[in-house]
């Protein structure tokens, strides 16, 4: 009876039943597989979150994004009045989150590798690249650098998936891959 004290005063020496023991062993093996899978994927998997990040400030980050946009803007998205930026293949590219947009729009080349820098100028935001489905937490004061290689072409949206106030559901960005 689990609501009474154990029937043996010394219960630590009770034997363990066959079925229980077998299950413990199976479960333990599976737990180890789950655990080892993570380091395995760091070595052999192609999708990992980099450990590269820096402390920054909204001003510093905004300046960098502006510099990139100034140099490589190719056109402007009329409705949102957002520059569409086509940085050189393989370069450092920037995208900032602020209430309520991801800025600027990026145009990338397929199968080229970029260092994508992300940060927020105000509150926390969620970088959710759809439909490929990559999700990152973006914080003010921290710059995340991910090395990405778009391997599909098309139009991708950056949805904000961290609640960021009453305009949260209007916060979108774009990445075009050619």
């Amino acid at each position: 009876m689990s609501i009474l004290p154990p029937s043996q005063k010394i219960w630590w020496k009770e034997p363990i039943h066959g079925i229980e023991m077998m299950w413990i062993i199976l479960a333990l093996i599976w737990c180890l597989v789950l655990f080892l899978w993570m380091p395995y994927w760091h070595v052999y998997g192609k999708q990992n979150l980099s450990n590269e990040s820096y402390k920054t400030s909204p001003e510093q980050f905004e300046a960098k994004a502006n510099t990139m946009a100034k140099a490589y803007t190719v056109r402007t998205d009329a409705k949102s009045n957002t520059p569409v930026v086509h940085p050189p293949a393989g370069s450092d590219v920037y995208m900032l989150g602020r209430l309520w947009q991801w800025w600027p729009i990026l145009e990338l080349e397929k199968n080229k590798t970029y260092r994508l820098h992300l940060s927020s100028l105000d509150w926390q935001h969620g970088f959710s690249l759809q439909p490929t489905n990559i999700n990152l937490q973006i914080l003010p004061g921290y710059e995340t650098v991910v090395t990405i290689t778009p391997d599909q072409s098309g139009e991708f949206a950056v949805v904000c998936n961290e609640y960021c106030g009453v305009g949260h559901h209007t916060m979108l960005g774009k990445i075009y891959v050619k």
Partner: protein
Amino acid sequence: MQKNDNQESTQEEEAVPGMQQLLDNPFMLLFLGVMFPTVFYILWGIMEIISIPAVK
């Protein structure tokens, strides 16, 4: 009743195994249960956050 008493006295002579002593000691468990996550999760985590480099 008598039988129970007998059982008690024979068992009490036997030393309680260390693991059972630990599991019967709420304050030792409390100590471990607070220390483990404080060290591995909080302190280690905070150390990493503090040592993030500033951007160039």
